[in-house]
């Protein structure tokens, strides 16, 4: 390991050191600067990723900070920074104390960074497990609410089983090729005939495991429970960065493998089921976070559609959508978090009239809903547009049509939130919190990203596509 090596993985080191610093500082001065240090670390890592161009990737470590990796590391870092900003006052109000929380967030980002930078299955797996592991803990972190623990348990059990699937899948792939490097293994997949059976089996196990992470039907069932049980900022993080990382996982594998029929059909089914089940189940949900969970399932169905249309530009579309989706969900859950005063507002009815009582948070929440529904000029629209363009170019007409129809259905439940915010009067005294400065800043940032990506998606799209050359 040379200085150059260290230099090349500097962002990862920054994140790791940041996590440790927060942890250590917590022992010295409990809960004082942890959020600030966390945010600074994350922003620093993000800036490093965006600014610094290493001379060459260093494959010997199994990780290479390619532009792809740096982009996603930066994205996840910034997401985490926003989450930390959102969490600070939320945690205070909810009585979640201690430096464990910010440190674990940093650790999760570290895992994501490793994952995005991996060229080898081992770090890839470890990154994935590391970040999932961080979330086991984060989901269960609210000790005041029994649901939080329950959600953590469910997430952990599912996650562990999925991890076993993933591990077994990787093992089969390794058995088939004798190499843990991603690229050669994936190239070998469709080299002959219909595909190497052992590799296919491995990929099958892998897919089943990753489906859990992305929460694709039928591995989606944990999602509503966990979203409902976990604290809102954690859900904001879980639904954005964690899912994003899982998509990154597939983005690292699929382009190298190519989209053989053996791979296409399972993805096709997952995408179809997710779009249909997610959107339908969300329709009459009464709990906002559960509703958003089902919506997340559906949204991931769209991302899967993009993934399986990779040859038509779908990888770029999927990456773009990850960014857009991150902004939208940060806005949505961020608004929920910043409105929380005492108990979280679970029931949709709790949001009645808040659009006028809390104009800023309500407005951001409404914007997020429109964005998730894919109404222009928001990132949700451009993202969906790119996905469907890719799908049609790849010839996935049936799935595209079904996707569009389910998108229509989905608008209903997004609108329900807006309806409650603006069209039903508040009952009794409004107990929602007024946003604090960090919350306002983070929500505003998310909103701006949603709008900017909705109106000028060009530069980001251009950049994202360049990642897959």
């Amino acid at each position, binding site marked *: 390991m040379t200085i150059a090596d260290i230099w090349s993985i500097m962002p990862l080191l920054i994140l790791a050191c940041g996590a440790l610093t927060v942890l250590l500082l917590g022992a010295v001065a409990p809960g004082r600067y942890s959020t600030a240090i966390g945010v600074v670390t994350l922003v620093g890592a993000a800036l490093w990723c965006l600014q610094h161009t290493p001379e060459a990737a260093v494959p010997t470590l199994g990780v290479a900070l390619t532009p792809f990796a740096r982009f996603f590391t930066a994205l996840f870092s910034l997401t985490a920074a926003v989450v930390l900003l959102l969490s600070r006052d939320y945690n205070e109000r909810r009585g979640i104390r201690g430096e464990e929380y910010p440190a674990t967030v940093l650790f999760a980002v570290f895992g994501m960074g490793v994952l995005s930078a991996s060229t080898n*299955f*081992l770090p890839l*797996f*470890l990154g994935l*497990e590391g970040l999932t*592991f961080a979330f*086991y*803990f984060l989901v*269960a972190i609210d000790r005041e609410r*029994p*649901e939080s*623990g*329950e*959600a*953590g*348990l*469910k997430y*952990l*059990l599912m996650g*562990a*089983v999925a*991890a*076993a*699937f993933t*591990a*077994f899948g*990787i*093992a*089969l792939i*390794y*058995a088939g090729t*004798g*190499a*843990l490097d991603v690229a050669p293994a994936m190239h070998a997949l469709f080299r002959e005939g219909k595909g190497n059976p*052992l590799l296919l089996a491995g990929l099958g196990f892998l897919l089943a495991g990753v489906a859990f992470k992305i929460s694709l039907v039928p591995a989606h069932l944990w999602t*509503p*429970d966990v979203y*409902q*049980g976990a604290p809102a900022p954690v859900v904001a993080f879980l639904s954005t960065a964690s899912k994003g990382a899982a998509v990154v996982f597939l983005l690292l594998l699929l382009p190298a493998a190519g989209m053989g029929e053996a791979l296409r059909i399972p993805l096709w089914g997952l995408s179809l089921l997710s779009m249909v089940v997610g959107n339908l189940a969300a329709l009459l*949900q*009464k*709990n906002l976070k*559960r509703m958003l969970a089902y919506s997340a399932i559906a949204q991931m169905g769209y991302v899967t559609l993009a993934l399986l249309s990779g040859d038509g530009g779908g990888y770029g579309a999927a990456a773009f959508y990850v960014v857009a989706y991150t902004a939208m969900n940060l806005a949505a859950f961020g608004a929920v978090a910043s409105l929380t005063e005492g108990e979280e507002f679970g029931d949709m009815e709790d949001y009645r009239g808040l659009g006028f009582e809390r104009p800023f948070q309500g407005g951001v929440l409404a914007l997020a809903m429109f964005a998730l529904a894919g109404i222009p000029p928001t990132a949700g629209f451009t993202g969906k547009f790119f996905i469907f363009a890719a799908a049609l170019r790849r010839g996935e007409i049936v799935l595209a049509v079904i996707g569009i129809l389910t998108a229509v259905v989905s608008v209903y439940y997004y609108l329900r939130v807006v309806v409650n915010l603006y069209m039903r009067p508040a009952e009794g005294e409004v107990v929602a919190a007024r946003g604090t400065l960090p919350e306002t800043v983070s929500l505003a940032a998310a909103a701006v990203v949603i709008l900017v990506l909705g109106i000028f998606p060009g530069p980001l799209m251009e950049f994202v596509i360049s990642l897959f050359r």
Partner: protein
Amino acid sequence: MIVPLAHVLILAVILFILGLVCVLVWRANLIMILIGIEIMLNAAMLVFVGAAGQWGVADGQVFALMIMAITSAEVSLALALVVYLHRRRRTVNADEFNSLRG
């Protein structure tokens, strides 16, 4: 290699399935579910070790070791959670944790 890789794989997949069965069947007991996961992970390790032997590279063994490490981390957190929840609910029946649903 003392035996064909396929045999190792078959043993591994049987183990894996047994672990899966354990996970799926023992809904009444969190501990048993965790044990099932351990069995599955062991099956994965077996594949790694077998493949490492087959291909003659150490990566597989390293991976197996890492799995072991991960497992220990996971089990410790999982058991902590089990203890934590048991303190609240006095049960280790996984299905009794169903306040979140719908």
